[in-house]
């Protein structure tokens, strides 16, 4: 009995040792880890994964549901690169955190949109309407900037990427703002007059930004989504291979075929 126990523990220990160092696995596959949000980032990565496999690179995609961990994990070198954020968001992160993550290549744009199940055109927005926004600093401001650009409100500084509801200087339609978790916004459509939703969450909820959005960012949006890495791995050949794969003709075709204009290639 005791022998069996010792044997069991030993084999568990060896198994543990074996899996802790994937890059030491001899053979042809080099591993590259990337942190991404689910839609469309992880889907695009999955689509180009075979391109990298042909070059002997095993792309391991780790999906995250929030916008903080993908950066944290890359900073801590647990993950090599990430693909989920815009440059303004990265800049804000670097400034607040004192880190120096870098953009490697721009891949796509997801025009941020305003959706409603209660009205069919933005002009029908009633006075006193309830408007739901993301509560995280970067998307909160992106939503407000979109509203300001269309004249629904006035912001103290229309270029401030970290604007909040407190920076609204004029609200002529007396809009009532509710800030909540970005991922929750599609579920609020039955309760609010207008919801400003990130495209990745809108797509997950079955909304089509091209057909359903009442307001949408135009193609000149500065919110291109980038592949992001560290200064110490930006020139790594595996990372460069990933950057090339993400901006390849196959990637472009995939994006155009799958997202019907809701996601646009930025290359």
């Amino acid at each position, binding site marked *: 009995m005791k022998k069996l126990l010792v044997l069991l523990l030993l084999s568990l220990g060896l198994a543990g040792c074996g899996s802790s160092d994937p890059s030491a696995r001899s053979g042809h596959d080099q591993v590259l880890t990337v942190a991404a949000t689910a839609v469309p980032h992880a889907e695009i990565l999955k689509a180009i994964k075979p391109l990298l496999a042909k070059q002997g690179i095993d792309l391991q995609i780790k999906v995250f549901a929030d916008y903080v961990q993908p950066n944290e994990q890359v900073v801590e070198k647990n993950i090599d690169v990430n693909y989920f954020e815009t440059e303004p968001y990265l800049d804000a992160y670097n400034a*607040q955190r004192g880190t120096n993550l870098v953009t490697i290549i721009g891949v796509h744009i997801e025009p941020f949109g305003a959706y409603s199940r209660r009205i069919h055109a933005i002009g029908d927005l009633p006075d006193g309407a309830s408007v739901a926004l993301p*509560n*995280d600093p970067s998307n909160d401001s992106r939503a407000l900037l979109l509203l300001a650009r269309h004249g629904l409100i006035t912001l103290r500084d229309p270029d401030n990427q970290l604007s909040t509801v407190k920076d609204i200087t004029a609200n002529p339609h007396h809009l009532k703002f509710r800030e*909540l978790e970005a991922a929750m916004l599609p579920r609020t459509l039955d*309760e609010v007059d207008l919801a400003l939703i990130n495209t990745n969450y809108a797509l997950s909820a079955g909304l089509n930004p091209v057909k359903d959005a009442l307001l949408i960012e135009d193609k000149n949006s500065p919110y291109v989504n980038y592949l992001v890495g560290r200064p110490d791995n930006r020139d790594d050949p595996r990372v460069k291979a990933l950057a090339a794969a993400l901006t390849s003709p196959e990637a472009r075709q995939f994006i155009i075929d799958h997202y019907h204009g809701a996601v646009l290639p930025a290359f």
Partner: protein
Amino acid sequence: MMSLLQHWFPQIDDWSELGQACLDTLTMLGGSLALTVAIGLPLGVWLFLSSPGQLKAQPAVYALLSLVINILRSVPFIILMIVLMPVTYALVGTKLGLRGAIPPLVIGAAPFFARLVETSLRDVNQGVIEASQAMGATTWQIIHRVLLPEARAGIWAGITVTAIALVGYTAMGGTIGAGGLGDLAYRYGYLSYKSNYMLVTVVLLVILVQILQMLGDRIVAHFTRR
């Protein structure tokens, strides 16, 4: 006082927002605790009485109640909140804000409290129950005049534990726009790296829990002496 606070915590630019968050947490707590006890207490009594060897022992009923309670307790609160959204919407007309937070808080905490009630009732001296039965007391009389009074201290201890558990649950409020201290800690402390907020909200929450525990201990002591 204000300028001292502003000096120590320069990242906090709006103290009234912090004040509002405190109020939101307290509102969520107050609203849900009352209902949790109102629902959990009868549920716990029913659970106890239908258990093997008790006054209204009915294995099928006990098994069913246990199953429902176990399932509700197994689901992590954030998931429970999302899964219950259609129910919440039907009950209070919204799934957002303070109103939208109360149903999931109650449905999450009541089963927990019911179990604590059941445990307290088990500690009641069987002899006293049997004596009341011998005197011809009805079930309702036994519950009302024997079981609950005898288990009072334990039940109040259970209320204290449940209240503090609820404070933890209310941290999820921000997801649905219900506000609260947990929401501020998450948005400003975690998402915006303003550690001042983390510190202040944690201190406030510790104070809140300490007060709840102290109050609870006083009440339990009062009922224990008798």
